């Protein structure tokens, strides 16, 4: 593999590239789905190849191939060079990457048990046990459980002298119970929605979830939701569980701080951002309770690695500090426009894609409250748990979320279960109304494995550390 990388870099330089990097990547994914007491699907997919990224005449070119031999490396490098030359005819300012990056080293996801060494039968058995526990609840209609395991081995080398090898693992699992009546469908999932909860870890991450212990509870909740009252409409105090807080961070802080979006590079697809450069160090994004970091060093986070796909070391930086907007997620190219250096957020979802600015682990730092304390201090509010739907405009300002489960909170006590709960807001108003964040004991890293961006499309696996949080004067329910 090292030979192929060197061949690509040599060819790129000989043919006139002022910069080149090459990534060789092998990706293995195993997915298991159990449905209504049966093993419904097992898929086992492998993909490997390489991608060469070059700068010629101040413009980018990229080409990749699944064929791993020297002749193909030569052809693909030629193609990248030709593409870059074509780009240069219609470029804006020449690409400036800032100071050279010469990282060298090896990184492996810390893990106790290699998920690919665990017998398939053991994994299926765990899902079937959880399925049986959900099935023991009367009134449930559909039960589903899933697991996903990923192993990615990648090599990065550049003409600046960087040479990095990384072996990254992910393990994820989740269960979901659906209950139906003639005029309603309700579902509950554990630990999160979107099929499963995932982390950069080994199989120990799966066993720690204790799927079978929570299975009966979520099935009971799905059935109970059928007869629960609708979430009322009004302006109320809103308390979010940690997983919904995580998605709120993702959509309304993670995405708008991506500097490529700010510069319009995603305007035709993923969108732009309201957090434009003149607001940096001036915008009071949230209350003093709100401090948000991008931390690629967070244990078990899906955005945890040794180096990003430009060779920048994993690091922790502030995006929001005591409510003030102080930083972006950056690449080498975008950071240099602001006179900064990259904070290491460039990742590609495979050998055949260019790296883009992607969230690492964008975390709401723990506060000093607790869910119990937030409830006890609330006179008229709603507690919402586990995302069911999301919607946000392309500048990441106006949003609406729905959750699977909610409870009314009246005079400091949790009241009736509510169904079809939603809330809406405007990003800075919402975060400025945050008056409590849970402490370290309730803080957890939530994996999100479905973040889409880029053309051709890429799906990033990112994470958000979050605890329950409380917000005042929020529009709850469907207002008339």
């Amino acid at each position: 593999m090292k030979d192929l990388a060197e061949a690509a870099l040599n060819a790129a330089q000989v043919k006139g590239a002022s910069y080149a990097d090459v990534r060789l990547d092998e990706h293995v994914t195993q997915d298991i789905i159990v449905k209504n007491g049966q093993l419904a699907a097992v898929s086992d997919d492998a993909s490997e190849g390489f991608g060469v990224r070059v700068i010629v005449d101040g413009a980018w070119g990229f080409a990749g191939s699944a064929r791993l031999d020297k002749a193909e490396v030569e052809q693909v490098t030629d193609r990248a060079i030709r593409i870059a030359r074509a780009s240069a005819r219609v470029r804006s300012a020449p690409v400036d990457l800032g100071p050279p990056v010469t990282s060298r080293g090896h990184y492996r996801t810390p893990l106790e048990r290699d998920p690919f060494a665990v017998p398939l039968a053991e994994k299926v058995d765990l899902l079937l046990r959880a399925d049986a526990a959900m099935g023991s609840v009367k009134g449930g209609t559909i039960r589903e459980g899933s697991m996903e395991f990923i192993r990615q081995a990648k090599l990065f080398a550049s003409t600046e002298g960087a040479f990095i090898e990384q072996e990254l693992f992910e393990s994820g699992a989740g269960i979901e119970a659906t209950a139906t009546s003639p005029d309603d469908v309700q579902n509950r999932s554990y630990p999160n929605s979107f099929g499963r909860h995932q982390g950069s870890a080994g199989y120990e991450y799966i066993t720690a979830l204790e799927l079978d212990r929570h299975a009966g509870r979520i099935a009971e909740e799905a059935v109970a939701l059928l007869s629960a009252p609708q979430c009322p409409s009004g302006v109320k105090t809103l308390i979010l569980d940690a997983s919904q807080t995580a998605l709120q961070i993702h959509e309304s802080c993670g995405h708008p701080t991506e500097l490529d979006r700010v510069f319009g590079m995603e305007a035709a697809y993923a969108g732009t951002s309201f957090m434009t450069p003149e607001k940096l160090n001036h915008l009071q994004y949230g209350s003093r309770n709100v401090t948000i970091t991008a931390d690629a060093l967070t244990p078990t986070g899906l955005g945890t690695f040794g180096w990003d796909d430009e060779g920048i070391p994993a690091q922790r930086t502030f995006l929001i500090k005591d409510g003030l907007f102080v930083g972006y997620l950056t690449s080498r190219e975008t950071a240099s426009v602001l006179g900064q250096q990259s904070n290491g957020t460039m990742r590609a979802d495979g050998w055949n894609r260019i790296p883009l600015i992607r969230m690492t682990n964008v975390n709401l730092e723990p506060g000093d409250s607790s869910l119990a304390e937030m409830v006890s201090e609330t006179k008229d509010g709603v507690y919402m748990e586990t995302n069911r739907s999301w919607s946000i405009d392309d500048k990441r300002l106006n949003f609406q979320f729905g959750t699977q489960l909610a409870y009314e909170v009246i005079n400091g006590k949790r009241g009736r279960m509510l169904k079809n709960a939603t809330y809406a807001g405007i990003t800075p108003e919402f975060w400025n109304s945050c008056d409590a964040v849970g402490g370290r004991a309730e803080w957890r890293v939530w994996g999100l494995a479905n973040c889409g961006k880029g053309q051709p499309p890429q799906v990033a696996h990112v994470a958000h550390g979050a605890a329950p949080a409380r917000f005042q004067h929020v529009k709850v329910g469907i207002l008339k």
Partner: protein
Amino acid sequence: MKSMEVVRLTDEAELKQFMTRLLQRSPAQETEVMVTEDDSALTRFANNGIHQNVAERDATVRVRVVKDGKTGVASINQMSEAAAADVLKRAVAIADLQPRSEVVPMPGPAAARRVDAWSDATASATPEERADFVETVCAKAGRAGLKAFGAFSTSAGQFGWASTTISVPRKRRSIPS
């Protein structure tokens, strides 16, 4: 031929030979193999300039086996002897774990209708042609005091399917967008 300068797809005979050998080495009672191969390129532009410009060549080899009334599926993106052995091994391992159940039968012999989905102009589009197109759009936007954002992609691919019961000839298609 211009298209051969840009789009590189596996030769039809080589593709058939790979699929035939894979089927021959399968230990399952029934096996099907589906190969899709694509050579694609995409030019993105923003603020009246090209900022991302990419191309890739990839394949997917998807294998379904039926063994003792149980089904297993696995995929890989390589077309080598070692890859064929690996993907078959993984598909059989999955089949062994499945409960015995009703098996979706492999399709029997049938006439394959020819679909004309190939355009030499699309398949042979060069990076320079895509850049020319984008330049025209951006120049027009610039003259109007506007900024253009978008993407221009071209791709060409082929698809082959074969099983222990039937084989379907290779299909080709090209897509501009």
